[in-house]
């Protein structure tokens, strides 16, 4: 819960809260070590479970010998899928497909998949005993590359099992003999004709690598049998407590109200802690043992739990001689790993934006979610958008170069403007794409002469822009309670994972009610008392929960007015509710409770054409400009300038908007420059540790990170706002690739762009290739 350090303003009515630059309400609790993280939770009689994992990428389980582990000193129990099925007969979970077993059943599908667990009071004893488990597998051929897997005879699953949660996926039920879990398409205009009559056709393929979210608080869940039989409390570091409750209830065949899911602050999420991760496992273990059970992953184990899709993106573009894009074909293969997680939604929601923020009459998009024998991929800050922007913006720069047009000017000629239809047919509203492009350009001082360096240090620059459709349709519900002393409590299911959502919620409720945000208490998600929220993902909370909180606060306000009318008292401000309640009850008693529920309108895209009148409630826009210095002798490069601009509508809390812009841009910088999960030919991950998987440190970040939110208003947003957590990831990668080409004349089409990659390309451009080994 949010601690309140400042004294309430005595009787005063607060001025507007929206637009205040406010530090996080929990900042003091965090830096003084008092903040509530599930990681610190310890319960009486709690058992620790450690996971035994598959050592083969694809195989039938012949036998699992747990006898030695069971007999080890201090071991309480060892369980496999057979035990799980005693409490969950159909032990498969997943938000999009019910394809993922809690522990492997009959088959294993990637190296690192959970196969068995050891429980003990001492986590070290449990961990040691996992080494005593022996599993025998009949190995099967495996597939790793997303393009190969799409047409391979090796099938990761026998049949597709859509969950039924998302209406867009229902048609896939029962499909067999395929690794393609979803084939989403967009068709608009006559693409073949556009290509036949084009002055130029460009055809390029871009790839991205598999990476991991690396939240610094690794995943942790604790399940506790309730005081009444047939109830369960799950304490978990989750971004989606409501979904956890629904899914656990489904697995157990229970009513939702028998499961309580409670969340603390999260030490980072970035999409890793969405839907179900460890919760189904701890729930089953707590029911089997009738004791609290904790599963806390190590940093290393997170790499085997959820990742970001590697992709292959083939993009073909038809252009006129003067640089107008007339047609575009996009084919994207998403490497989903062994289980779908939310991958099919990523494939669809990012897939339909793959032709870019450009006004193109003729578009064809095919977006394939593909099963492989690698760790599963799901949501990752950007929800697939950074992968498609990398392709379409790199391609834009290559077209501009081929045509000899300035890259900014090329974008201006093609940009998707207000009131024009997007490739899905949805008409653009409140998407400040042009404005973002122009502000990036101005911040880069694009028109001024540019110093290109000399000798072994060459300089170049590039810009990139991208957009994202807010994931729809989803629901948020919130409650606002005013007490008889006038103080305010907000009940919301939004999870604060570092993005300062508690502070934003307090600002929004306070704005409606005339109360300073510092004096509002925001209750952390607990499904026993906070109402439903779809999840904290995809920059949806500001918009959806923002509306729900606004509606709840307005509802409370209306009730205060009604109470004033009933009492014949003057209605002043809702913050004066205490006077009214005292008048009514004759003492300090009673509450006013406001409720808000929000789901934006949405029109499902046509299955054949992807066309929709209203595919999203809003578009989030981000652009980046960089200047790089390349060391031509080694391929090392550094960013000399890093400008990031977003359209987030009205900033609710400018301080936090600022840090979301820099944080997202830096995260994408690491993915662009060095992050990569490295697998050997057997599908074994070779760098599952921070010693060998590198994320950016302070010395990798440019001295200055430019940050700006353009002056824009989201007409249908709460207080004119929309999300901002992902937008500055969009343009980073392609801008760097373009700046490198601008500096030294080589084009990199695959991430990450390491010094060796650059140096090898330089050697090749001189016709002196460096030996492979």
């Amino acid at each position, binding site marked *: 819960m949010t601690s309140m350090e400042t004294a309430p303003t005595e009787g005063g009515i607060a001025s507007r809260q929206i637009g205040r630059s406010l530090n996080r309400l929990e900042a003091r609790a965090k830096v003084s070590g008092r903040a509530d993280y599930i990681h610190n939770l310890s319960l009486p009689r709690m058992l620790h479970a450690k996971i035994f994992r598959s050592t083969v990428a694809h195989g039938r389980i012949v036998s699992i010998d747990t006898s030695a582990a069971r007999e080890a000193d201090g071991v309480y129990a060892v369980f496999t899928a057979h035990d799980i099925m005693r409490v969950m007969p159909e032990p498969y979970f997943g938000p999009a497909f019910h394809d993922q077993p809690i522990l492997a059943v009959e088959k294993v599908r990637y190296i690192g998949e959970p196969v068995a667990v050891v429980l003990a009071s001492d986590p*070290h004893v449990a*961990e*040691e005993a996992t*080494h005593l488990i022996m599993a025998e597998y009949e190995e099967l051929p495996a597939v790793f590359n997303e393009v190969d897997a799409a047409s391979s005879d090796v099938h990761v699953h026998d049949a597709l099992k859509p969950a039924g949660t998302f209406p867009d996926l229902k048609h896939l039920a029962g499909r067999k003999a395929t690794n393609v879990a979803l084939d989403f398409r967009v068709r608009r205009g006559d693409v073949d004709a556009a290509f036949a009559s084009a002055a130029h056709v460009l055809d390029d393929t871009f790839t991205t690598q598999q990476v991991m979210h690396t939240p610094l608080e690794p995943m942790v869940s604790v399940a506790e049998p309730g005081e009444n039989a047939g109830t369960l409390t799950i304490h978990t570091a989750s971004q989606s407590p409501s979904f956890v409750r629904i899914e656990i209830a489904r697995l157990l065949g229970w009513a939702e109200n028998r499961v309580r899911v409670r969340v603390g602050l999260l030490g980072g999420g970035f999409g890793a802690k969405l839907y179900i991760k460890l919760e189904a496992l701890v729930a089953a273990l707590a029911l089997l043992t009738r004791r609290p059970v904790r599963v806390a992953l*190590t940093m*290393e184990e997170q790499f085997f739990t959820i990742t970001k899709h590697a992709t292959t993106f083939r993009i073909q573009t038809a252009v006129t001689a003067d640089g107008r894009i007339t047609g575009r074909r996009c084919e994207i293969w998403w490497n989903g790993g062994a289980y779908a997680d939310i991958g099919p939604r990523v494939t669809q929601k990012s897939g339909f934006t793959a032709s870019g923020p450009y006004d193109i009459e003729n578009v064809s998009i095919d977006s394939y979610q593909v099963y492989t024998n690698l760790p599963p991929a799901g949501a990752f800050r950007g929800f697939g958008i950074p992968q498609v922007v990398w392709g379409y913006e790199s391609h834009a720069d290559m077209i501009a170069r081929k045509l000899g047009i300035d890259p900014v000017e090329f974008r201006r000629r093609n940009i998707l403007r207000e009131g024009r239809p997007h490739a899905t047919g949805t008409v653009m509203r409140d998407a400040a794409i042009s404005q973002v492009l122009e502000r990036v350009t101005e911040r880069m001082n694009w028109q001024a002469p540019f110093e290109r360096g000399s000798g072994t240090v060459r300089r170049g620059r590039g810009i990139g822009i991208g957009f994202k459709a807010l994931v729809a349709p989803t629901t948020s519900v919130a409650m606002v309670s005013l007490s008889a002393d006038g103080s305010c409590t907000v009940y919301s299911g939004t999870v604060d994972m570092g993005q300062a959502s508690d502070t934003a919620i307090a600002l929004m409720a306070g704005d409606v009610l005339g109360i300073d945000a510092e004096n509002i208490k925001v209750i952390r998600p607990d499904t026993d008392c906070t109402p439903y929220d779809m999840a904290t993902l995809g920059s949806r909370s500001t918009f959806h929960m923002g509306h729900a909180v606004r509606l709840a606060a307005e509802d409370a306000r209306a009730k205060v007015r009604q109470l004033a009318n009933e009492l014949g008292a003057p209605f002043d401000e809702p913050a004066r509710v205490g006077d009214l309640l005292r008048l009514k009850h004759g003492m300090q008693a009673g509450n006013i409770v406001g409720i808000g529920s929000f789901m934006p309108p949405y029109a499902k895209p046509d299955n054949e054409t992807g066309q929709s009148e209203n595919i999203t409630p809003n578009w989030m826009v981000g652009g980046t400009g960089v200047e790089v210095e390349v060391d031509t*002798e*080694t391929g090392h490069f550094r960013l000399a300038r890093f400008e990031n601009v977003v359209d987030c509508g009205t900033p609710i809390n400018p301080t936090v908007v600022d840090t979301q812009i820099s944080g997202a841009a830096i995260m994408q910088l*690491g993915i662009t*420059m*060095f992050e990569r999960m*490295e697998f050997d030919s057997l599908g074994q991950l*070779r*760098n599952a*540790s921070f*010693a*060998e998987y*590198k*994320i*950016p*440190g302070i*010395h*990798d970040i440019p001295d200055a990170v430019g940050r700006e939110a353009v002056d824009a208003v989201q007409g249908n947003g709460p207080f004119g706002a929309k999300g901002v957590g992902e937008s500055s990831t969009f343009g980073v990668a392609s801008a760097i690739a373009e700046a490198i080409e601008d500096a030294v004349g080589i084009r990199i089409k695959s991430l990450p762009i*390491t*010094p*060796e990659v650059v*140096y*090898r390309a330089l050697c090749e451009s001189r016709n002196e290739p*460096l*030996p*492979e*080994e």
Partner: protein
Amino acid sequence: MAPFELETPESLREAIGLLDPDDPDIRPVGGGTAIMLMMKAGVLRPRRLVSLRGVEPAYSRITVGAEGELLIGGLTRLAELEHSPLVRQGWPLLSRTLRTLSNVRVRNVATIGGNLAHADPHMDMPPVLSALGAKVTVTGPQGVRTLAVEELATGYYETVLARNELISQVTVPAQAGRPAAYMKVTTRAAHDWPALGVAVLLDMQGERIANASVIAGAATDRPTRLAEAEAILRGALPEQATLRRAGEAGAAELDIVGDPHGSASYKKHLLTVYLGRAVRVALDSARNKENA
């Protein structure tokens, strides 16, 4: 992690007595920064750890000897070495290198003796101390012996030390204003282990290099002296072509293997570039000091 005994002796002699030359499951531990990671990863499963924290403070002192040599107790924390005014004045190469060695949390606890005895080839101190001609004093049950830092490592995590010998002192000859540099070349994040480390120490005779001490680290399984490169530099003017030739000779004499930091051919190329850069940086920093 498996259970283990933790011994906390109060003297070096006692610590040595708790070690066993024939038992690989008994390990000394200084700062513990490397050993704890290996234990957590399950690659090291010791039965007994002998903590050196309680041994006599004499083994963590930094002093200057009669001949102007730097005497560093084996248990001196890297951070103390980094911030020592003595070191900063007399051995600026050490101070500069320590600033980019791992991170401040590691430097605050890791010891110089443990650093050298660990013999991970990616470490920065072994090539730097080797270039400076440093020696280690090794104490065992039979007494002390002295050997060059350069002779310490025999391979990946392997040294000439017996299991019951401890590095009790490191002796570094006076840098005496001689130009020196260490180039730490990373290919992923800046805080990564280096793909290549190049340490040089130059004896100058006017504009000419009278003698060069050149050690490559990280790219091979132990720090290696580049004798061919040294021969080319000896008596030469530090001109671009000569430096390039020295770099190429250095790359040719090294058996480099590829790893996730870079392919063998790329790391060889880095050496051809960075050997010359190390010489230039050494000369520039010495010159700047004169001007300062």
